[in-house]
């Protein structure tokens, strides 16, 4: 069981991800925008952070920058979920400090598989 933060402004997608991951027995926190996400990251230690790219207030990229500037959060694992699926977008995201990237629309099962792999240190 891992502690995971999901930052996603679309309620429906939140429901999808949360339902799926809770079924796998993970503890999920939800944030609706970038600001909320940063707040929650400050206060909690997450095993994995799932960030939507297009979010109000702070975009996923901005959140990553904030997080990477926090002294104790340099190595927290971050996965970016984005509708911007082109290779350049992926590279930009990874360059900004994200560890993983997943393009929308994603399969919830695939997402679970990747998260399990990451949590077990198998994914690259």
């Amino acid at each position, binding site marked *: 069981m891992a502690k995971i933060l999901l930052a996603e*402004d*679309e*309620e*429906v*997608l939140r*429901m*999808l991800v949360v*339902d*799926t991951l809770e*079924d796998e027995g993970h503890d999920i926190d939800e944030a*609706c*925008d970038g*600001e909320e996400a940063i707040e929650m990251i400050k206060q909690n230690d997450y095993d994995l952070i799932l960030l939507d*790219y*297009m*979010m*109000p*207030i702070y975009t996923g990229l901005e959140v990553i920058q904030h997080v990477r500037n926090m002294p104790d959060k340099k190595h927290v694992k971050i996965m970016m979920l984005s*509708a*911007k*699926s082109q290779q350049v977008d992926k590279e930009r995201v990874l360059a900004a400090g994200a560890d993983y990237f997943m393009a*929308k*629309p*994603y*399969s*919830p*099962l695939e997402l679970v598989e990747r998260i399990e792999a990451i949590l077990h240190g198998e994914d690259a």
Partner: protein
Amino acid sequence: MEKMRNYFRQSLARQFVLLVASFLVVFIVGAIALSMYQSSLVASFEQKKNEIETKMKYAQEVERAFNQAFSDVRGYLAFNRKEFKLSFFREQENAQTALDLLESAATTKEDTQFIVKARQFAQYYFGRLVPEAIDAFESGNIQKVLSLSENGGTASIQQFQLQMKTYKNNLNDQLDGTFRQLSNEQQTAQTAFIVFVFFMLFLLIMIARIMTKKIGTPLRALASMAEKIAKDERVHNDDVVHTAREDEIGKLAQAFRKMLASIQDKEETLMAHNEELLAQQDELELQQTELEQALEAMQARERELKRYNDFIQSLSNLLDRQDVLQSIVFHMASIMEADRGMIVLMNDEKTYASFGLSPYGVEQFLTYVYNGLYQRLFEQKKPFVLKREVAASEKGYHEETMYVHDIFLPVLSNTDDVQAILVFSRFGGPFSDEEVQEYVGLTRQISISLQKIELYEQTEQARETVQHILNTVQEGIHFVDRDGNSVIVNKQMADLLQKETIAELEGASYEQWARGLVEQSDAGEKLCDYLRAIIFNGDEEHEPFVYHLPQKRKVMQVYAKPLYRHGERQGTVFVHRDITKQFEVDQMKSEFVSTVSHELRTPLSSVLGFTELMLTKELKPERQKKYLTTIYQEAKRLTALINDFLDVQRMESGKQTYDKKYEDIVSIIEHVVDTQKVNTTVHTFHIQKETDKTIVLGDRDKLAQVFTNLISNAIKYSPDGGNVTVRIYEQNNRLCIDVKDEGLGIPEEALPNIFTKFYRVDNSDRRRIGGTGLGLAIVKEIVKAHEGEVSVTSELKKGSTFTVSLPLVALAPGEEDERDNDDKQAHAHVIIVEDDEHLAALLEAELKDSGFRVKHVKEGKEAIALIEKEKPDAVVLDIMLEEHNAFGWDVLKQLKENDELAHIPIIISSALEEREKGLALGANSYFVKPYQPSQLSKTILQLLLNKERQGEIFIPLPQEEAK
């Protein structure tokens, strides 16, 4: 001998040589004779002198011997010394010898006599006296000795000595005489010499005389004759003398005579020539006079030309119309010596210039320019001169009658129209015909000048027009010659090059003009390279170059086109386009794609995700239902999004069609509110209807979309609920609808962009509000298509009000009957004759939609009856009617035969392709089935408009059809 004479006669030189030779011979002979004489004189003198001197020597020897003998004897006698006696005997011998010698030398009688006497004395003395004396002495007979001396001895000695002396004197005398003779003879010789010299001189003179006579005189004669000839005196041929001579003079004289003859011959010829020449000279003088006259004329012409030139020069230097006219008047007045004058152009403005005239005079002239005298100019197109008495106003202080001469000159254009008229007044004297001719010549120049001015003005206008055109073009246009100099530039380009005016760039070099551009560009160097490559390397094909102007926030694109004339490159035209919009549009497009991608993927993710979960997992029924509901909603959302995208796309590209009808806006809004109500539980809806005129002409569905978007926004952006009020009212003759919420409001800075596609206000409170960002853009497009406007006012945290205003339609609901009545008068009435019910209904609907009143009949007879009764504005006629005895053609014919009905336009609607026949029978238009019903209504409208009946027709046409 004769030969010899001839020989000498033929040559003067020979004669001269002969004379000189003779002279020399005489001279030499004379000289030799004289010198020989002289030497003979000396020789004979020498001989005689020698003889005498020899004789004198011997005589002296004799004397000495005797004297010695005397002294010896006396010594002997005195001293008795033998040696004396011996000496004496020696002397005796000496004396004898001397005497012998003397004798041998004796020549004269005196000599002989002296010798005889000396011998006698020697005999006496030596033979007897001395031997006696010696004997006596020796004997001692002194006495005897004495006696001997006294008796004769002494005396004889003395006598002898005397004789001796005499002889010697005689000899001396002879010598002297010989000298004297010599000197006398020499004197004679000298005289002879002098005589000889004189003779020689005489001879010389004689020779000179001969030569003078022979050469000098004839030469002088010839010389004087030559002189005479030289002096042009008449010399007769026979006057030439000495021609008979054979020598040089003769030849000379003959030659001279021949020469004279030939000279005389020649002189005669020359005289003839001379006469001829004199005649020619006369002629030449005549010609010269003529030439002088011609020269004078030329000079006069030259002066005239100079005036012309000055005049033309002054004309050609001017390009301003008024200046030219002023110059013409001034120069013409000075050429004419006129006191006042005027030129008026026969254009609409009556442009003029005057000289010495008052404004009043000018005005009067211009007022009456088409009356009176001037009319003559227009008719005759020839100048004329008037002499008139000076008017009182012109006279000044003069009292006597004065005359003034007025000249009226037309300036004819090359089409022989009177282009301008010139009027000049001269107090000084009349105008001669020549002057008038000269002025006519000048008017041609004036005409040319005026035409030139006109051309210049046209060119200038054309140039200005071109410049204006260039300036109205939004692109910066720049024509640069091959050296990079700026030639033509428009205003936009000048702005771009940071110059205040276009003039600043006139002829500017590359360095001058390019700096302004390069400085402000972000790609200065590259832009520079681009321009240089094209201008200086003459590169032909180049991709357009894009550069940014950061300060002006502009994106520019420049492209170049080479300009050729006669195959030679003249330069390059650069066009700088402001592609900021396009650039932004491009950026927006990519943003749009990105946004669309995001917006589409989100619902798609849900649909796919939940479907996958449902397919792969065993779920409780509640969850299944929840998921299915979500899937359904997301799918609907996806549909709405796609519809919105398509709508925006269609609207923006102008492809959206609107099905416009008269609609009551209230019913539309009520319907929308009813639909939206179900989506919220926290909002209260109000519809305030403040006017009865709520009918609009519009597309019901699209208008519903407008209010759906506005009301759903009102709900979305007031998440905490509140009132949503729709107010319908009339303002400024327009129907206005407010949609007001009590929600979040919109930040002021966002208001201008709120209707822009994909613009979404970024606000912390909006995080949960979804949307495509297209709703308001769609609203704006639809309202615009209904000739309406949409605006917004908002206050943060208090709410926003969106106002839609639409054009009012005069008719109010509930007045349907009245509207029908109105229709009868206002709307054009169309009768459709068509047996196909289906098609008839289609056409009827179309025509009604277009605002026509429509009636439909199926049969021909019925149709004619109805048409007669109602007299419609137009008839749509089918040809293949079911009724067999009345084809459409018959209906058409009958209608056209009826005077009352013939004017009604008939549009044939048929499946038959018999356009020609239909039009021939009087149909106004022919439609071959199948056709677009809208085409029919357009055609009918067009026909009615063409009949100029539009005043009676009131057709509220939809916008796009009116276009």
